[in-house]
């Protein structure tokens, strides 16, 4: 009779011994390995607490005897990545920039490396899409118009030495004189009209042509094609660094703005600069290397420009 107290008759299972208002709990024993598994997790937890960072303290957590940290992990991964790409960097450094295209795989790696460096160092001015900002005079790097040349070597040079950058004696240097106080307003207007007429934007005038011939043609060339040797922008195309309206052009004649770009030779290694050059060149406007030829300019222009035209040495 007393046994019946401990065995549930319909199921033949014993009771645990609790009872709440006539409801009793049946005892279905857990397998013992289950308990062992629980103990194993406890042991694991103790081991983990000893080996790894675990208890949060006031300023940092306990360090654990393995000295593991997620920061250390990251540093390790970063150095591993650096090591992994070292060979590629060496090859890029050893290859002449114009020969990179012979090895499409290497070229692609250089472009990818350049794209990544561009995001870090260049987007602040030139924008994420390298389209520049017209209102600030940051040039667009995707088009086919280049102030200082769009060949790989030209771009690499610009990146290394900068534009109007004090850090390099070989920086790209060009200054347009301000004509404020020299020309009357009507003269500036005539001149702007003549400049716009190169790209068909306006009618030219005799006065404008005359003023241009005297004051501008030395650098910008008689028909406005510009001169990359001096960094004189072309005036006969559809692309305007500081805007294409008459007001923009008037302002640029009266008080020219001069954009500057830092050279990167003191911040970036030559390989990164090379990769950046390749990337910018690949944006769709890159030009082939210029075949050296004698500049066909008149003597006095040549004499005048030697002062400033030290850009492409």
């Amino acid at each position, binding site marked *: *009779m*007393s046994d019946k*107290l*401990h065995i549930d008759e319909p199921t033949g299972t*014993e009771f*645990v*011994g609790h*009872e709440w*208002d*006539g409801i009793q709990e049946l*005892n279905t*024993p*857990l*397998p*013992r*390995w*289950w*308990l062992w598994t629980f103990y194993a997790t406890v042991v694991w937890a103790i081991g983990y607490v000893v080996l790894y960072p675990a208890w949060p303290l006031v300023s940092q957590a306990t360090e654990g005897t393995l000295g593991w940290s997620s920061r250390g992990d990251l540093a390790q991964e970063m150095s591993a990545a650096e090591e992994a790409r070292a060979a590629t960097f060496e090859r890029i450094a050893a290859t002449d920039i114009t020969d990179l295209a012979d090895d*499409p795989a290497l070229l692609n790696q250089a472009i990818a490396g350049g794209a990544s460096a561009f995001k870090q160092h260049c987007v602040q001015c030139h*924008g*994420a*899409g*390298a*389209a520049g900002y017209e209102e600030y005079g940051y040039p*667009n790097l*995707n*088009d*086919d*118009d280049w102030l200082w040349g769009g060949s790989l070597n030209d771009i690499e040079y610009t990146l290394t030495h900068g534009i109007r950058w004090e850090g390099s004696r070989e920086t790209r240097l060009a200054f347009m004189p301000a004509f404020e106080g020299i020309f009357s307003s009507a003269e500036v207007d005539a001149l702007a009209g003549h400049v716009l007429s190169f*790209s068909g934007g306006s009618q030219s005038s005799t006065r404008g042509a005359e003023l241009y011939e005297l004051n501008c043609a030395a650098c910008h060339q008689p028909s406005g094609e510009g001169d990359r040797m001096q960094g004189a922008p*072309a005036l006969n*195309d*559809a*692309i305007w660094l500081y805007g294409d309206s008459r007001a923009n052009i008037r302002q640029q004649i009266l008080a020219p703005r001069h954009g500057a770009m830092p050279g990167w030779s003191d911040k970036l290694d030559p390989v990164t600069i090379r990769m950046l050059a390749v990337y910018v060149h*690949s944006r*769709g406007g890159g030009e*082939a290397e210029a075949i050296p030829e004698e500049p066909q300019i008149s003597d006095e222009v040549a004499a005048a420009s030697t002062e400033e035209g030290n850009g492409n040495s």
Partner: protein
Amino acid sequence: MGTADAITATPEKGGRDWGEALHTTVAPGLERDAVAASQRKAAGPPPKIKLYEPRKAVHNKRIDGPFRRFKWLVMLVTLAIYYVTPWIRWDRGPYAPDQAVLIDLAGRRFYMFDIEIWPHEFYFVAGLLIMAGIGLFLVTSAVGRAWCGYACPQTVWTDVFQHVDRFFDGDRNARIRLDKAPWGVAKTSRRLSKWAVYLLISFWTGGAWIMYFADAPTLTYEFWRGEAAMVAYATVAILTFTTFWLGGFMREQVCIYMCPWPRIQAAMLDEKSLIVTYKDWRGEKRGSVKKAAKEPEKYGDCVDCLQCVAVCPTGIDIREGQQVGCITCALCIDACDKVMKDLGRERGLIDYATLEQCEAESAGAPATPAWKALLRPRTIVYCGIWGAIGAALLFALGTRAHTDLTVSPDRNPPFMLMKDGSVRNSYTLRLRNMESRPREMEVALVGLPEGAVLWTDQIGRDDAAPAQTLQVPADETRVVRAYVVVPAASSNVERFAFQLTSLDAQGEQDTEETTFANPGGQ
């Protein structure tokens, strides 16, 4: 017992008691506690309750019969498939691996004989999983837990290990004796050599697994030279351990305590599913042959020989009815049939039957052959769905294109003004070649005005043309940066398309419409 009845109140009585206790005094409660205490004192200390129980080792006896032979066959076929498949070679030409079944995780390809699955075609795998799901419904509704009983890896490897037990330690009785024997030299050496064989089988099992993920001969070579990837060694180690532990020691505990499958399957069984059943109306009351000979009308066919229990790989007594521990391997049917044959009684005291058939039979209807349970609307509908999905997958597989083009226009900057006033847009093209050979493909502009030209990052601007021919490497997606220029006068176009044509006998084509952004547009 009278006092106990008073204490163990029925619910309604308990409710009244509580009410009274609240409204009157606490005395009845106190009195009750006192009674309970005296009751406990009278009964002595409560019996020790065991909340955990050790595993009772299962030493299943050797048996032969049609179901055992079928089990042998299934084991042989499944193990052969598992161990041999990665070693089958399949010529795919110089640009693709020659392993018949290969899951190339690094290359993101799945090869299965003539079929090659790319990541974007994962719906084929999803389809197969759906088929596996419906197949589960189908098999379970028709033949119950057949998966558990025959094809489940846990069942197959447990079976293998149980045969290793039998080989080293003899049959059931010898194994029970050895289990109880003290640990001496003989027992230790037997155990160690048995576990060594366990380990060998487990290692081979783990080793076979990784062969599905890399070229098998190369990987084997690298594996033994210590040159294989860390993940290969780790995988082998983990699978060796799980096989050794789950197959060698946990065995039926996996089915009873760990696996969700029996629960899922239990939910899918109905009264028309085949299960292994002890026909109690025929078997009861159990009694020995002698007793039954004396009083034949009092006893049933079951002679309580316990052979069904002895052969059971999960150690259950099928005569207790359907239970989660029964994997329906049907070895008890073989055992019982043998006994019945020896006694000259009709076979099938334990047999595959549906609950519905059981009910009919116990009411006196003749035994129905088991296969009749297979054909019924539910299984036919499952079959139909299963087959339809399979056919749809095959159709999709047969008609899929091996060429594809995707176009994404540059959004920053959306367009580019060129020196001569023309407008350029840049696009990233992805040319997919799903053939295992390099192909020439033509990309052409469709719907752009006269004078619109195209060049790429590899084809210079000097060679710009309305259409370009590109080489796409075998089994690859080539990413091409494309530039499209529209002359100044006609740059107000907004929509056009790239047309990709494979320049081979297939002549596959894919046209992808996209936008052309220009200064005058939105």
